């Protein structure tokens, strides 16, 4: 079991190190997500009562679309020099490769969320300290990352990779996006915990489904 985690971490660390050196993905995704928030902020800044209504949608549009951009690159790093073949030659179960990549995807989407959420809250004049929102972001990020990592592997060998990923990713993650928007709206409205619970349960349920299914099908996606 220890060996398994060492390998998952090795894949994660290798991807993180590459990204820290190139800053190819995080920078562009951050700029994109911030632009989405700023543009929506201008578009909807028509009245004081608006933020609670439109803000949840704006936040999750920024995270989901930014995520799509970033997930596109999860397997791109393996494309050159036939690195994917090098990875496939390693004596590990294909699920180990998936989990290593997933760890990178989760870190990426959480890092983007960590930067854009405070800016989003400030721009929409919302309270900055919302621990429950942090929980929703972590749970939704897990769902996004599990699906995004899988479809990134699907898209890597297609010509229209940039278009393919959003077409596959967004419809599948609709339950998580919709639930995250709903629960964010309830948090911003100061609703009681029991009203949010059902939406959180939906996100958790889909996280589990995505994780199990993606782990199982990854081998078939990545093999010849």
């Amino acid at each position, binding site marked *: 079991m220890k*060996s398994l985690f060492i390998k998952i971490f090795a894949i994660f660390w290798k991807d993180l*190190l590459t990204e820290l050196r190139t800053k190819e993905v995080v920078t562009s995704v951050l700029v994109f997500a911030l632009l989405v928030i700023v543009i929506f902020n201008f578009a909807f800044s028509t009245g004081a009562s608006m933020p609670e209504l439109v803000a949840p949608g704006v936040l999750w549009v920024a995270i989901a679309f930014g995520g799509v951009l970033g997930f596109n690159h999860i397997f791109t790093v393996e494309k050159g020099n*036939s690195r994917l073949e090098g990875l*496939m*030659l*390693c004596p590990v179960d294909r699920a180990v490769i998936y989990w290593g990549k997933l760890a990178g995807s989760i870190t990426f989407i959480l890092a983007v969320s960590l930067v854009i959420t405070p800016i989003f809250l400030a721009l929409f004049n919302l309270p900055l300290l919302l621990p429950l929102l942090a929980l929703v972001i972590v749970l939704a990020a897990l769902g996004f990352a599990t699906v995004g990592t899988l479809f990134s592997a699907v898209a890597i060998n297609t010509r229209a990779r940039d278009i393919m990923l959003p077409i596959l990713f967004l419809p599948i993650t609709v339950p998580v996006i919709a639930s995250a928007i709903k629960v964010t709206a309830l948090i911003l409205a100061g609703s009681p915990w029991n009203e949010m619970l059902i939406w959180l349960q939906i996100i958790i349920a889909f996280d589990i489904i995505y994780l199990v299914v993606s782990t199982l099908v990854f081998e078939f996606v990545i093999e*010849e």
Partner: protein
Amino acid sequence: MNEIGTASSSWAIEARGLTKLFGDHHALRGVDLRVSKGERLVIFGPNGAGKTTLLKILSTLAKPSAGSVWLDGIDIRNKPAQTRRHISLVSHQTFLYDDLTVYENLKFYGKMYDVPDLPQQIKTVISWVRLESRLHDRVSTLSRGLQQRASIARAVLHNPSILLLDEPEVGLDPHASTMLRDVLGNINSGNRTVMMTTHDLERGLELGDRVIILDRGRIVYQAHKHEIDTANFRRVYDQYTVID
């Protein structure tokens, strides 16, 4: 018959009836192959003969449409992950990450293969390929020849018993190619089985104990080195291969 037991007793590589189809195109047509432990087998053949496909199947990167393969007696269909521990592949692609240093690349692959005493093993393999001075340089800063040597270090890091080389000299200048041949000689001083594809008849004959000519997915010629008239081998090669 216990085929696994039979295969494990004598052969490093045993393939029976290997066939590979890409749509209607036959890349391999019932290839039977046996390679002894420690043997150096060189495969010649024109482009499209099936050399790379054969190596991809042997390395578990591709699945045969029909036929079976045993590596060190292990059926690659039943235990692909276990099989991969015994093999390594060097191709003209290095499998290395450009933005990581040579050391970081080797460390990554070493962890993936559970290489014991990894820092010491990295030192050992890097000295084999004579790349000590560039160990902490990023791969992207190395020349093509140096990258290929780093790739060989990666390939032998986990001490595989079977080394598959798919046209490793492609893209190298004559000097780098000679250096590569020396490096390959260094790393094969033990009992490692080596299977190499190449277009370079002269170099191939120099390196191999036995040669095979593959043409249109079939083995059309094979001979041990001592049976070959090296001076006339070009004529033999032309005789057995068809140019489309």
